[in-house]
């Protein structure tokens, strides 16, 4: 993948450690994510990848270390601050709102951009409706982009897994985020679905310029999609570089082949 032009750092993780009781999920992890790039976070199971994402968007609070996002350094963030600041994310086990349709789920992603309050909404006709229509317009673009027009009104619980993941991506995109965190976006997909999803991810990066951090197990995908890669193992960073560099790193090979250390 061609590196993005800018080398401006969007997110800097510095010395982050996280422990749950006796389990050390992350140990002194530091890396950065540059604006406009696609950064993969990989590693064997249990390496702490999801925990890392959870720390970045404020769901877990690290015991030590800081996160610098868009110039602001913090020891910990609340999830609301993260989303307000422009971080969106998808989940390993599709966290869609099961009682709503695909359209409503994606519209929910526009919450931060909606301004009309309780009273206007009660009335609906007038400013609130105009706002709804305007946002509906915007997300139709996303629906178009993700090719999910046909299933807009379907309750998400009834959608097949692959489409659910796409809707979840749509909801994240609706937030117009600066940083998009994708937790195993390809999990459970067949080859065709993976190719579609890869295409979407690349398009999001190219078209909207969104910086993307993704956790992924499929090595081919990682090598093809990402600009740079971070490798975690047992909560520790063991490699950091371009896909080519990572491929040749002995430590990474050992970690994956399960060599005892």
């Amino acid at each position, binding site marked *: 993948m061609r590196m993005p032009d800018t080398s401006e750092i969007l997110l800097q993780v510095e010395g982050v450690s996280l422990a749950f009781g006796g389990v050390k999920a992350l140990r002194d992890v530091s890396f950065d994510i540059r604006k406009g790039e696609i950064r993969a976070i990989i590693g064997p199971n249990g390496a702490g990848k999801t925990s890392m994402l959870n720390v970045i968007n404020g769901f877990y609070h690290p015991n030590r270390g800081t996160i610098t996002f868009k110039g602001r350094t913090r020891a910990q963030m609340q999830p609301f601050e993260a*989303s307000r600041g422009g971080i*969106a994310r998808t989940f390993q086990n599709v966290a869609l709102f099961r009682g709503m349709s695909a359209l409503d789920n994606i519209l929910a992603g526009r919450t*931060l951009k909606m301004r009309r309050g309780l009273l206007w909404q009660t009335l609906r006709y007038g400013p609130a409706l105009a706002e709804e229509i305007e946002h509906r317009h915007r997300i139709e673009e996303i629906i178009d982009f993700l090719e999910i027009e046909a299933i807009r009104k379907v309750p998400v619980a009834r959608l097949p897994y692959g489409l659910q993941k796409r809707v979840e991506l749509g909801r994240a995109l609706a937030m117009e985020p600066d940083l998009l965190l994708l937790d195993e976006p390809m999990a459970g997909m067949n080859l065709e679905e993976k190719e579609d999803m890869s295409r979407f991810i690349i398009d999001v990066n190219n078209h909207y310029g969104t910086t993307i951090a993704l956790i992924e197990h499929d090595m081919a995908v990682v090598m093809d999609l990402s600009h740079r890669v971070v490798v975690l193992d047992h909560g520790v960073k063991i490699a950091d570089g371009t896909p080519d560099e990572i491929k040749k790193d002995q430590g990474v090979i050992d970690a994956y082949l399960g060599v005892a250390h």
Partner: protein
Amino acid sequence: MLYREAGQFKTSYAEDMAIFPIRQDRIALGILLGIAFVGVPLLATFRIWPFASEYLLWAILLPFLILALAAVGVNILVGYCGQISLGSGAFMAIGAYSAYKLGTGVHIPLAWLGFVISIPPLPVLLSILLGGLMAAIAGILFGVPSLRIKGLYLAVATLAAQFFFDWVFLRVPWFTNYAPSGSVNAPPLNFFGLTVHTPIERYLLCLIFVTVFAVLAKNLVRGNLGRQWMAIRDMDIAAELIGIRPLYAKLTAFAVSSFIIGVAGALWAFVYLGSWEPLAFSIERSLQLLFMVIIGGLGSIMGSFVGAAFILILPIMLNLIPTQLGVPLSTETITHLEFIIFGSLICYLLIKEPHGFARLISIGKEKLRLWPFPY
């Protein structure tokens, strides 16, 4: 064949997002409203069947309207926002007693602060709405714990509200204007110079209230706030991560829900009962409202109406049918049968169709769209 959407194209997002996008639904609603606003009063005025006596209007339609309104309020909190509440009776009581005090004049001597709060009796409409507002404020207060506690624990907190307010309205004589018997009478219902007195007038008054509130509630649940509520219900952790603030969403749900329930309570006391005691709003009422919402359909405004109708009509059916068949049942047996039927229905619906009758109806509509073809 009858219920086809073919030929109904939506040419704007506004059309696509309307309440009843299918024309047949709009026609059906129009007919229903026509019957409600025009047909019923006409039939009742001329005493034509089934309005030969006042029974249908007074004992069935009136309570149905008011309880359906309360059920809409409960549905917003429990069905749309997923916050269980066993205390709705208390909020009806707050609405009723606040409206009562405001309607009969409030006099609070705060001698130790040096002044007296004295409000003259307010017009009935204002009292009712402000009663709802008081209930909304109480709702917000009792909703604050919902941020830290969920599900079952929240149920206990709402029970605390229920029992606490039961006691307040029973033991604090200020609320009943020091009436020796503990029961109070509603002030005369004067709206803009007209006095509402006969059953038809009461019916129309409630009908207007209910229609207006149902429309406003429907607007809210279709908008962004409604989506926020449903998001909190479905997965509050994910909701937070897309920028929804749980505090705001939950408290607005409590506020709006309690407001509607409070207004319903004031209407129940003023328009239906006329004279009441705190028992009218006890835990039995809370459970009744909860049942209406579960049976009718959680997360459906229409479902609230269906549930209310069902719960009101069943006891009457249980009374009528055995009598018609020549095997009259004692009131006790009827009560026991009610219990068994309601309980079984709740279990059955929770297993088969958690979205209650409203979902069964919309499934029916979907089948109707294809009729007479099977698929």
